[in-house]
């Protein structure tokens, strides 16, 4: 949180609840992965909850959100129900995509969440197309695309940034800089570690911000969305954050220097927001409710998800063509 600003307690509590929803969802996902209910590679956003919480309140129904394999939190904040998401991850018939997408590649278009993507960089041009469509279909749609620090080194991301800037398309590029591209420090993979500076190369606005502070994120998102809605083109937001867990479940994280995660735990979104709200005099019970409410919601969602039948193999060949 920018030290000079105090959070508005009402928004602060809503944000704390939003952060907890994602945190608890991800913890549940981890449990289900470890217990075998979820199969395959799973990428958690624990520690990175403030981005989705800050951005998604600013989106309208018409807007289109695109995320990556690390997208559960973004989907949740966008309004995708936790039960359908967990069912998707657990390969249930009731999953968002009946189990076809899984943890890393589900989509929920009816909620304005137009898909995770598990090809690094691939989501950015797709989002640009959604914004392009917005220019032609009269919807006023803005597209928000989320990707990691490492994705900025991918050719497709570059092409998307330039394409959007050249045509002043309504896109907000959200780069979650969590310091690592998978297992490798981004600082070792670029000569200019201030990634938002790339925006200038494309002639677009760019900004680095505290990605662990929902209100800082919200303010920046609002500015970017206003610019986009006003036809002033795209923005690149670099959200500085850290994951408190491995790149994927099972990551031994030997590449992280000793103490790094411990330090990150001091500045992670929930700890900080809770402390700030407490300092403002928000009662503990209200703060606790944020967590408790989230736990209840996710617990129920998980129970509902797991109660549903496993996806039926007999349907696996449907919908390949129109």
């Amino acid at each position, binding site marked *: 949180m920018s030290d000079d600003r105090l959070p508005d307690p009402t928004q602060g509590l809503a944000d704390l609840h939003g952060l907890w929803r994602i945190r608890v969802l991800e913890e549940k996902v981890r449990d289900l992965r470890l217990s075998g209910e979820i199969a395959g590679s799973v990428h958690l956003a624990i520690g990175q909850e403030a981005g989705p919480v800050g951005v998604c309140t600013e989106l309208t129904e018409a807007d289109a959100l695109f995320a990556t394999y690390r997208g559960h939190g973004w989907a949740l904040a966008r309004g995708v129900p936790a039960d359908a998401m967990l069912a998707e991850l657990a390969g249930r018939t009731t999953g968002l995509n*009946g189990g*076809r997408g899984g943890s890393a590649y589900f989509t929920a278009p009816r909620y304005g969440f*137009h898909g995770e993507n598990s090809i690094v960089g*691939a989501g950015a*041009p797709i989002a640009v197309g*959604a914004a*392009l*469509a917005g220019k032609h*279909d009269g919807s006023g749609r803005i597209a928000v695309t989320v990707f990691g620090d490492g994705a900025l080194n991918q050719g497709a991301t570059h092409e998307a940034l*330039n394409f959007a800037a050249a045509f002043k398309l309504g896109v907000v590029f959200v780069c979650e800089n969590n310091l690592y591209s998978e297992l490798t420090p981004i600082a070792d993979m670029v000569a200019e570690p201030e990634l938002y500076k790339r925006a200038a190369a494309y002639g677009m606005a760019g900004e680095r911000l505290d990605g662990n502070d929902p209100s800082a994120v919200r303010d920046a998102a609002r500015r970017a969305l206003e610019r986009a809605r006003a036809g002033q083109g795209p923005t690149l937001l670099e959200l500085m954050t850290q994951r408190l867990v491995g790149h994927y479940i099972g990551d031994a994280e030997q590449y992280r220097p000793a103490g790094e995660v411990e330090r990150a735990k001091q500045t992670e979104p929930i700890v900080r927001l809770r402390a700030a709200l407490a300092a403002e005099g928000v009662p503990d019970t209200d703060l606790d409710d944020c967590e408790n409410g989230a736990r209840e919601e996710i617990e129920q969602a998980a129970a509902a998800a797991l109660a549903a039948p496993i996806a039926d193999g007999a349907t696996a060949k449907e919908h390949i063509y129109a």
Partner: protein
Amino acid sequence: MPEATTMATTGAPAGLNLRYGEAINAGLVRLLTELPETLVYGEDVAKPGGVFGVTRGLRRRFGDRVFDTPISEAAILGSAVGAALMGLRPIVEIMWADFSLVALDQLVNQAANARYVSRGEAPAPIVVRTQQGNAPGACAQHSQSLEALFLHVPGLRVVMPWTAQDGYDALLAAGYSDDPVIVIENRTLYAGEKTEVRIDGPPRPAGWTTVRRPGRDATVVTWGAITARVLAAADRLVADGIDLEVVELTWLNPLDLTEVLGSLGRTGRLAVVHEANVTGGFGAEVLARVAESGVPLSTAPVRIGTPDSRIPAAPSLAEALVPSVDRIAAQLTKLVQEKP
């Protein structure tokens, strides 16, 4: 459902006299007119009207629904996917099929998956126009015939029109299709002869094949621009008493081999001719399906294609590789003369 037609002359309906490239232009005009959700974009397609002139006039007529792009194939294809997810029907151009290789991800990992993963909720009905093949002097990076790559990708449709009419019909079918369709054209055809093209009919359902020539002695399956050489070879062999049936597969996906299998039932001999190099080419798929079908052949089938080589720029070298009328005729003669 796929539909097979023959060249049986029909009472000539009202049509225009168009070259292949003009027919494709006419198809684009019709799509832009009838479907407000279409866009046409790509490198140099709008203001300059395309490097081959195929998209000439569209910008003037349809304004900013037709636009030029940066040299960014991943952004072109990716944005098409994204726009399609939102309900548009973008028609984009990849100037040479060879260039699709810088951005194949957007077709294979993105466009092809959209409908499947969303169970039909969010398909990506894009049309990708491209063109391919060798032409005199073209270098190794501008000469490949890559249809087999697209044909191994479930979720994509592929059509390779050879005549002006098929060019028009293929574009129209692709534009109306709810699947991603790759329309593979051929630059050596754009400025070809003018032929009568009917432009008033309804979109033809994808999947047609055309018997370009009926015959008794062998079934020759082919597609794309090389069809002309196959027909020339077949015409030439008439003098030798050889009578070939030539079936052109305009659509390779959906693939309808009914006509081919029926023909083989009569001829018992199979050749496939394509411009692509032989190994891993789609001719292998045709031979494989015929073998699986159990239709008895009286002699071993043959594939006639470019040998497994890169394509050299010098015409004298490329001509030694890309199947010529001579080489096709010689190999077909051998096939027909083979003792059962």
